[in-house]
């Protein structure tokens, strides 16, 4: 009888704890035993659930059960490689009992584990590199396409701006005004998500190149216009004086002299472009940023982001170097 009553009492208590209520000092041996059984059967999640039922202690006598339940849970979590969750569980104990040595030692051990060793970083790098490399190739493709399109677009816009034909000049002014005055992200959204409602559906890559191309054409347009207008007016007069047309003078005399002046600002724009390509990750393009983001979200591993940063740096460094070389070459007639 007495045994049965005891069983009933424990069962009742079980129900109470399930609903989160607690009346006083209770012995949780039973619960521990059950959770040990579950662990033995390999049902770690079940064991965890049971352990989590031990509430924060209301009276001093419960402190022991609470601490042991949480530490047991932490061990289970740690064994499942859920290091962050294990740490959080230990913190529960330390919040109430800051001096508990078991919890403190365990935390220290876990933190040691969190610090990645050489081999883990290397393993992660090798694991992430293929996906990141694929993303980097896409980024490079975007950069190269935009670098091809935008100087031409920029030249047209610049020539349009300085044209004496008013409507042409106004149109080019408007293009510059619009594309420099609104966020690139918004322009990309408009081209990729907005144009379909006008019946124009574009592939992500096409939309990205159009968006980046227009945006950078507008920026380069102003830079090129400035460079053209900075060339001594006497050059145009001398060209005209030997009978050149406006177009011939531009092509043979004026524009070639802008190259050297254009290189530093255009180099700057293209460095910015390499980083701006990250924005197209928002329109369903898997380039470097998106690839890194996907890896990070899958593995919750910061190595992916660090690697992406390194690849961006490598790209920008290479381009900086190339532009410096071109700048020197473009101005060679001044050095000799």
């Amino acid at each position, binding site marked *: 009888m007495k045994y049965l009553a005891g069983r009933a009492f424990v069962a009742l208590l079980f129900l109470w704890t399930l609903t989160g209520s607690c009346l006083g000092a209770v012995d949780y041996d039973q619960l521990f035993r059950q959770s040990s059984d579950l662990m033995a059967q390999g049902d770690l999640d079940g064991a965890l659930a049971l352990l989590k039922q031990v509430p924060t202690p209301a009276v001093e006598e419960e402190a022991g059960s609470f601490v042991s339940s949480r530490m047991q849970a932490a061990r289970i979590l740690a064994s499942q490689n859920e290091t962050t969750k294990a740490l959080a569980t230990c913190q529960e104990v330390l919040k109430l009992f800051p001096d508990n040595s078991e919890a403190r030692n365990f935390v220290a051990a876990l933190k040691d584990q969190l610090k990645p060793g050489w081999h883990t970083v290397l393993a992660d790098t090798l694991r992430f590199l293929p996906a990141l490399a694929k993303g980097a190739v896409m980024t490079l493709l975007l950069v190269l396409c935009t670098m091809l399109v935008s100087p031409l677009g920029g030249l047209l816009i610049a020539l349009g701006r300085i044209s004496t034909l008013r409507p042409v000049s106004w149109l080019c002014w408007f293009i510059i005004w619009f594309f420099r005055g609104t966020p690139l992200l918004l322009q990309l959204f408009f081209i990729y998500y907005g144009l379909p409602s006008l019946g124009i559906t574009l592939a992500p890559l096409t939309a990205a190149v159009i968006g980046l191309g227009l945006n950078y054409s507008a920026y380069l347009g102003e830079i090129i216009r400035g460079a053209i207008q900075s060339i*001594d007016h*006497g*050059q145009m*007069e*001398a*060209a*005209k*004086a*030997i*009978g*050149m*047309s*406006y177009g*011939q003078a531009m092509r*043979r*005399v004026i524009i*070639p*002299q802008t190259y050297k002046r254009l290189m530093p600002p255009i180099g700057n724009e293209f460095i910015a472009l390499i980083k701006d390509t990250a924005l197209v990750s928002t329109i369903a393009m898997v380039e470097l940023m998106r690839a890194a983001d996907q890896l990070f979200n899958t593995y919750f591993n910061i190595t992916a982001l660090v690697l992406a940063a390194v690849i961006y740096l490598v790209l920008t460094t290479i381009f900086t170097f190339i532009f410096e070389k071109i700048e020197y070459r473009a101005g060679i*007639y*001044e050095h*000799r």
Partner: protein
Amino acid sequence: MSIVSQPLLKLENITKRFKELTAVNGINLEVTLGEKLVIIGPSGSGKSTLLRSINLLEEIDEGTIHFEGSEVGYLLRNGKRHLDRPHAISALRAEIGMVFQHFHLFPHMTVLGNVMEGPLTVQRKSAEEARSIATDMLVKVGLSDKRDVFPATLSGGQKQRVAIARALAMRPKLMLFDEPTSALDPELVGEVFDTIHTLADEGMTMIIVTHHMGFARELADRVIFMESGNFLAEGAPEEVFSKGQDNERIRGFLNRLL
């Protein structure tokens, strides 16, 4: 013979205004084939504007320009003057060479490239032909050894001689010189004058704006003294320089130069 008596260039009532300022005020001028005309006058008197009007770098407000007997540069459309079509203007400029005070060589081209540029791009000659013309012109101005360098390495006098060669490569019928030696150190003036002298001896028709009276006296068939957009005196050099002593303005100008 009518062909001989017909002037190469004839300006009638040329007027150019910049807003309310009249830079050239109803000028009449005839230049015959082979003539060497020197224009002198104080700063701001309109000498450059007159030269620039001749090869249409300035659009004049009134007057007509005849070159080789036919009117050039402007069209009447709906009773209003307009600049002629671009290709007609370019065609006229191709026949008139101009040399600027500040040379305006193309810095991104070699010396040879500068001189070749007209024949190559404007006259669409082959590179070979353009190169041979350019080489001849560089020999003429005494700079064939500099053909492969960039203008930045040349002295002022050398630059101006290259600029003359560049203009000559187009085989112009008239040469305009706008103060060709004003930007030069005194010791470099001589070489440029010598080059112009050689041209003059070959019979080139030329209009020269200069402040060097000695050069004007020596070279000119005719000297014009210009002030405030008008011709104040005109005639043979001796005439203008001596008779000019009667005119207070001209006397003052000449005295300041000497």
